[in-house]
């Protein structure tokens, strides 16, 4: 069951996993990503029966193009915010960088992956995960790199005249190839097989992990889900930084509604993406 959704009255302490800034960024990515896919994909699959239908629903190519650019601005905003945050984190030494509990991939991730595969085939215990599991790191960095590539190539094509003042025109061909392929990769693969399944589709969080909307999960879920981080914090004596009193019932209800709405939204998007992935395979 989803973390925190059924926090009972007895639960009075929660683990604070995501700050308001990170939750806000997730919403930015979520909204802009689906907006971009919805408005961009009919151009890629122009011969399919639903391309024209989708374009007409959005009010024509011009309207879809406008929406795509609006969503691109939101997406770029996410990238700038996240990049600035990371820069500030490093410069101001907000926390450890090369550590088990940081977002930077390390040796433990490789070991965890091997451990998970052992567990998949019934040959060992589930590895003790730290703050970010290897699939979460993959998710984060793939999205970060993807946003840079897709956003960069998109901007090149948005302002072709400015681009060709510096680069030759053939760079726009390259940009188009990158934009189209990388967008399809991000849509079809990361957001179905990696993010949607690993982050929200696993039985412990199905149908959606509320923690990314609410920011917290019950302490007992935390200890079973991220035992390594719990151990590390226990040893370092920093547990008090992340353990907080549970939010009010009203706030909990609010987050439950937000999560439910996002879940419906995500399931529609996932079905649509499955269609996208299957389309070139079937037709």
């Amino acid at each position, binding site marked *: 069951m989803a973390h925190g959704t059924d926090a009972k009255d007895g639960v009075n302490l929660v683990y604070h996993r995501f700050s308001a800034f990170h939750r806000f960024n997730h919403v930015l990515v979520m909204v802009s990503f689906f907006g971009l896919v919805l408005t961009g994909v*009919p*151009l890629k699959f*122009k011969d399919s029966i639903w*391309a*024209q239908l989708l*374009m*007409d629903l959005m009010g*024509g*190519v*011009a309207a879809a*193009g406008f929406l795509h650019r609006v969503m691109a601005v939101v997406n770029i905003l996410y990238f700038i915010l996240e990049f600035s945050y990371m820069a500030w984190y490093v410069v101001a030494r907000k926390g450890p960088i090369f550590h088990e509990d940081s977002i930077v991939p390390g040796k433990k991730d490789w070991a965890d992956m091997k451990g*998970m*595969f052992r*567990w*998949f*085939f*019934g040959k060992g215990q589930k590895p003790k995960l730290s703050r970010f599991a290897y699939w979460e790191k993959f998710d984060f960095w793939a999205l970060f790199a993807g946003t840079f590539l897709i956003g960069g190539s998109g901007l090149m094509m948005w302002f*072709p*005249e*400015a681009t*060709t*003042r510096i*680069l*030759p*025109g*053939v760079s*726009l*061909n*390259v940009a*188009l*190839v*990158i934009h189209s*392929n*990388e967008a*399809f*990769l991000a849509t*079809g*693969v*990361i957001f*179905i*097989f*990696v993010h949607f*399944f*690993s982050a929200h589709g*696993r*039985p412990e969080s199905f149908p959606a992990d509320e923690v990314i909307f609410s920011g917290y999960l019950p302490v007992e879920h935390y200890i079973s889900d991220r035992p390594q981080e719990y151990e590390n914090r226990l040893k370092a004596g920093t547990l008090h930084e992340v353990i907080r009193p549970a939010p009010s019932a009203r706030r909990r209800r609010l987050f439950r509604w937000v999560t439910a709405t996002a879940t419906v939204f995500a399931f529609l998007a996932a079905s649509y993406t499955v269609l996208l*992935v299957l389309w070139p395979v079937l037709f």
Partner: protein
Amino acid sequence: MGRRCAERGHPRAGLGRLSRLRRLEAVLGLALLLCLAVAWPAAARDVEGCLICHGDPDFVDTTPTEGGPKSLYVDSATFVESVHGELACSACHKGFVLTIPQHQVDVEKDFRQVAIEACEACHPDAFMSYQTSSHAKFYYQDEAGPICISCHGSHAIKRVRLGEETAEFKMEMARDSCGRCHEDYFDRARDEFHIKALNLGYERAATCFDCHGYHENLALHSGEPETVEACRQCHPGANAGFTYFQMHLEPHFLNAWWGVRAVYLFFSTLLIVVLVVGIAYTTVHLQKETRIILGVMGGGLGRLFGFIRALEEESYRSTGESDHEREPDKPTRSGADEEGGA
């Protein structure tokens, strides 16, 4: 009283019948007038009587040719709708005399020359543009080269206001005019974002003649001033570098610059690798989770599996297979049970 009525009734009935007849006449007359009114414009324009013969769908040139008899039929309904619908036949078919079919040797040449001259008479500017085009160069070298009617057609030229064309119309023109000879280019252009957008209904997107010109038929090579001019119609800031964007690329960018091909190859490979690895990883993870869930729900499902197993054993027994052959099945089930406990 009844008689009086009948007496009075009789002439009245007669009058009724008469008026009914008259009404019928009037209706028939009106219908005839209406028919005439509808048919009149077509009829009026055929003052020369050409459609007496050419209005017959079965009217053909009987001269034996390779492709069978050539139709000489003109669809008057389409013609009347066309932009030239007001003109008489001889306005374009200049110098037509009934003897022409006898000049069999030169008829095609005469016809094409007359056709060009006919268009030039009213459209001198378009003709001047055409004179400089590669189409004209081709035509003056070889009779087979395209002339006005090769692209525009003859009797069905539509009435269009320049700049107000719909996306469908532009696509139709590109397909039926340019695409008829430049098939390969037209097919490749379908994968290009200009035509993609046009195909999905964006009428401002460029099609063949928006860049190559309606009559000039510019070749448009990268880096040339006329190419820059062509791009600047929509992209005012375009410079020479802008024109090095590669158009009309084959599927999978086979004829593109090697850099484009390399990037395409890299990202396509990446796409396939990540897709395959992603699906495989998810499947492996999912089977584990499914086994856990089935283990938790063991009670009901276990009984179901037990029932299936009993059926299987029954079928094995009936076919007389020995027991040790199906022993490898057994650990799987017990293994699943252990997962549930874990």
